């Protein structure tokens, strides 16, 4: 026996490195989730801003909020827009998914790509595209006015906001429906065909009902997404005074000369409760969802249904949608970025310019915003991936006493809207001692981003972890490796693809992110999203368009590297 056997009978050290890491990670997760929440709740019950001295407890904020006509109308607008947007996104998503995956629609592969584009572009960028194309001074609007003498639509309306919000959320519905649609057993459709049903009838009576769980589940996600969206209402609603919960918080907390933090904190608490309630409903739905299961786990090669006489009408409808709703607004951004001004009466060649790009790429503060965005996305992506990895490992594969609570905690930020997370960290920085260091640099942005996206990152890693047999770690333990060695030598290497997918997901989300940042930006710490908003406030549309193009380019380059070099599997969420 050449091996020195362990000194096992000796009383064990209570604190070893495994305890240190498991409890350390749990403490970090607890702190970054609790840090923003507690100050918001506190703020809603005190009579002055949290950073002033001499707080007195009061319920006046709640009374003021519920008697404020602005708040009540914002609440109503939010609900109406979210309902309409969800209907639009689910109809478009389900129809798109069915046509692309189950039928002989011409160019269906191309449509499968184009309809998902809004997923990779932030809703802020798409809103700008819509504004420049269909807004009151938009390119197509002006063209319409020249021909017909008036503009037949009004983008600055509840309907206009709901339409744009619905389009930005449609890809999520489509992804969920596509995942289900590709695994439907084709014999279910063939049975209907043998019984004499025509293609459209089959799609309506067999395929669509099978997609119901996917439509309802993604619908709830999209409904929550529409409620917490800041971009569309701020671009398309604020100019005409249509406010929503997010813009109510934004105008009272950021752009007002005298921020009313009593109202802001209270509105944030209410928004949090609203989303929590929706998540509760979602979980209820999920627990009852197993009886919907009609599709096997096997990835069957779906046989395609012939649309017959509907082939070309369907192609026309989906083609017009892709062109008018997605391609044109994005193309508009590129065009607008390359001209001094746009007017249907002036030839584009005469006003062609690169000055918007050169201005952004040579002005230090704009350069800094781009560099900051990449630094924040990469750092927060890296930290977030590691934190999600350890959270998943501790909650699923350790014996730590609080592992169940840890998982619950890590998933909780799902219910914290981005803007509320921003306010929470803003308040936390105001009260926590020593936080000025975090505030001075990009630290607080990174923390806030990581916190808000913990559930998304956890969702990217946890399913992969469940695929790895626990016997692999038990084998490591009996052989003599402690928990951390098992993690480092066995689980982490096996989870490498999931970690890369997680990093990709987080990086892209962080490049697009802006609503968390609006409360946390200070001079020197701007990111692309906040710079876009300030360009827009100053009416510099050429710069807005150019910076949008730069943001899209960063995401495209990163996705290319991720797919080709890092071989990240094409999972999105």
């Amino acid at each position, binding site marked *: 026996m*050449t091996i020195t056997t362990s000194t096992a009978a000796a009383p064990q050290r209570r604190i070893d490195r495994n305890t240190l890491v498991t409890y350390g990670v749990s403490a970090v997760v607890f702190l970054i989730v609790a840090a923003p929440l507690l100050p918001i709740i506190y703020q809603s019950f005190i009579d002055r801003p949290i950073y002033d001295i001499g707080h007195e407890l009061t319920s006046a904020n709640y009374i003021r909020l519920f008697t404020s006509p602005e708040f009540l109308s914002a609440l109503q607008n939010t609900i109406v827009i979210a309902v309409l947007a969800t209907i639009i996104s689910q109809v478009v998503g389900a129809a798109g998914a069915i046509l692309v995956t189950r039928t002989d629609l011409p160019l269906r592969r191309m449509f499968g790509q184009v309809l998902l584009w809004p997923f990779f572009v932030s809703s802020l960028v798409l809103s700008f595209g819509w504004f420049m194309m269909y807004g009151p001074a938009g390119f197509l609007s002006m063209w319409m006015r020249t021909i017909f003498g008036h503009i037949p639509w009004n983008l600055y309306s509840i309907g206009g906001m709901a339409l744009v919000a619905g389009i930005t959320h449609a890809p999520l519905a489509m992804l969920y429906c596509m995942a289900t649609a590709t695994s439907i057993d084709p014999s279910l459709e063939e049975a209907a065909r043998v019984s004499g049903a025509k293609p459209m009838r089959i799609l309506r009576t067999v395929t669509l009902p099978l997609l119901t769980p996917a439509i309802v589940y993604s619908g709830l996600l999209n409904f929550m997404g529409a409620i917490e969206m800041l971009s569309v209402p701020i671009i398309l609603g604020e100019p005409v005074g249509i406010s929503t919960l997010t813009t109510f918080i934004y105008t009272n907390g950021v752009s007002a000369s005298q921020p009313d933090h009593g109202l802001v904190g209270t509105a944030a608490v209410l928004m949090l409760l609203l989303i929590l309630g929706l998540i509760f409903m979602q979980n209820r739905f999920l627990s009852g969802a197993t009886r919907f299961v009609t599709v096997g786990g096997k990835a069957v090669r779906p046989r395609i249904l012939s649309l017959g006489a509907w082939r070309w009408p369907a192609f026309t409808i989906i083609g017009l949608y892709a062109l008018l709703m997605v391609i044109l607004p994005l193309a508009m951004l590129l065009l607008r970025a390359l001209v001094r001004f746009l007017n249907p009466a002036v030839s584009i060649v005469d006003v062609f310019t690169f000055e918007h790009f050169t201005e952004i790429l040579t002005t230090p503060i704009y350069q800094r915003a781009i560099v900051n965005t990449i630094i924040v996305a990469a750092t927060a992506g890296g930290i977030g991936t590691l934190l999600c990895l350890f959270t998943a490992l501790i909650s699923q594969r350790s014996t730590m006493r609080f592992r169940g609570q840890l998982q619950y905690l890590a998933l909780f930020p799902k219910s914290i809207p981005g803007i509320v997370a921003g306010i929470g960290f803003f308040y936390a920085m105001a009260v926590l001692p020593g936080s000025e260091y975090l505030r001075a640099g990009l630290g607080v942005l990174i923390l806030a981003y990581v916190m808000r996206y913990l559930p998304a990152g956890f969702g990217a890693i946890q399913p992969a972890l469940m695929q790895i047999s626990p016997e692999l770690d038990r084998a490591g333990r*009996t052989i*003599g490796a402690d928990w951390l060695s098992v993690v480092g030598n066995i689980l982490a*290497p096996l989870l490498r693809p999931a970690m890369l997918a997680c990093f990709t997901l987080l990086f892209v989300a962080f490049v697009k992110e802006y609503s968390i940042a609006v409360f946390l930006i200070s001079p020197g710490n701007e990111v692309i999203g906040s710079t876009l908003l300030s360009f827009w406030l100053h009416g510099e549309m050429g710069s807005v368009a150019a910076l949008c193009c730069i943001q899209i380019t960063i995401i495209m380059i990163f996705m290319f590297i991720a797919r080709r070099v890092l071989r990240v599997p094409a999972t999105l969420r």
Partner: protein
Amino acid sequence: MAEVIARNLSRRYGEYIAIEDVSFHVKDGEFLTLLGPSGCGKSTTLGILAGLDRPDEGHLSIGGEVFFDGLTGVFVDAERRNLGLVFQTYALWPHMTVRDNVGYALRIRRIPRAEREKRIREALALVEMEQFIDRYPSQLSGGQQQRVALARTLAYNPRILLLDEPLSNLDAKLRDKARSWLRQLQTQLGVTTIFVTHDQIEALALSDRIAVMNKGRIVQIGSPREIYEEPASTFVADFIGTTNLIRGQVSEIADGIATITLSDGQSLRAVARSDLVAGGVALVACRPERIEVATTDAAGQNVLRARLIERTYLGARVLYEFGAAGNSIKVETPCELPEEADLHLPVDHCIAFPATEASTG
């Protein structure tokens, strides 16, 4: 190597009792099998031995070192026990080659590279897998993976070897070969081995002793011969091999031999268990291969008249199913048997159990 002492180990998961009051003593170099149906607690017991699960009560020491004690609160983590565990699924790490799989434990123990390589090769030579050293587990067959899994645990000279149904994923032919190979290797190394299986043939062929488990408890512990020939309960008799259980009334007990009267008035004699009482209901256990047709000179024989129900041809033997007084009696023999026969059940091979145990299996 080491001896294993387990005393009164219990493990509950909420209301569910996984094991209760499990005690055994495995001598140095001995091969003990934990045998029982699925859910009997044998894998829980193995997990507790390995340190992957913490029992609620009891005491466990291996090689003189206390690994668990419910009273003093001592619990040693799996990685500090220096035991070898081979899993049913082999649990080879898919991202490591055979060399890295086998060498991982040596790396953890900071063995220098040259020494490590030598010991990897030794361990692989032991299981005749040297030529596969650079393969990944996915490039090996089931039998080869099983050998590598064994080499992986042997590489660091574990105190004892724990085997969790390592043969169950092999096909029948390969399993027979692997079984005798495993037994030879264990004898050659002299390592104390605890083997978990639900396969009684494996248990009988491999073990020095067998601990039969049912519903979280050890119901009998003994040599394969003892377990087979002298089962302690109808459960053991029925679980190990096939046995006939014939129901009747105890009419008398004399000199350890009970006379059992069947419902049709026929009677049988059988070795009485100590807890058998006259007047009670008994189950007489007798192996099918022990039963034969009574010779014409029937004096002193234990004879039962029975009628043939079914005949199944098994190749080397024929399995007959007879009926007598509502009992099914199986007889396994190469001979041809008539439609109606006087069956001779040798008294030394008949055991009478009290029929208090609700079921016969």
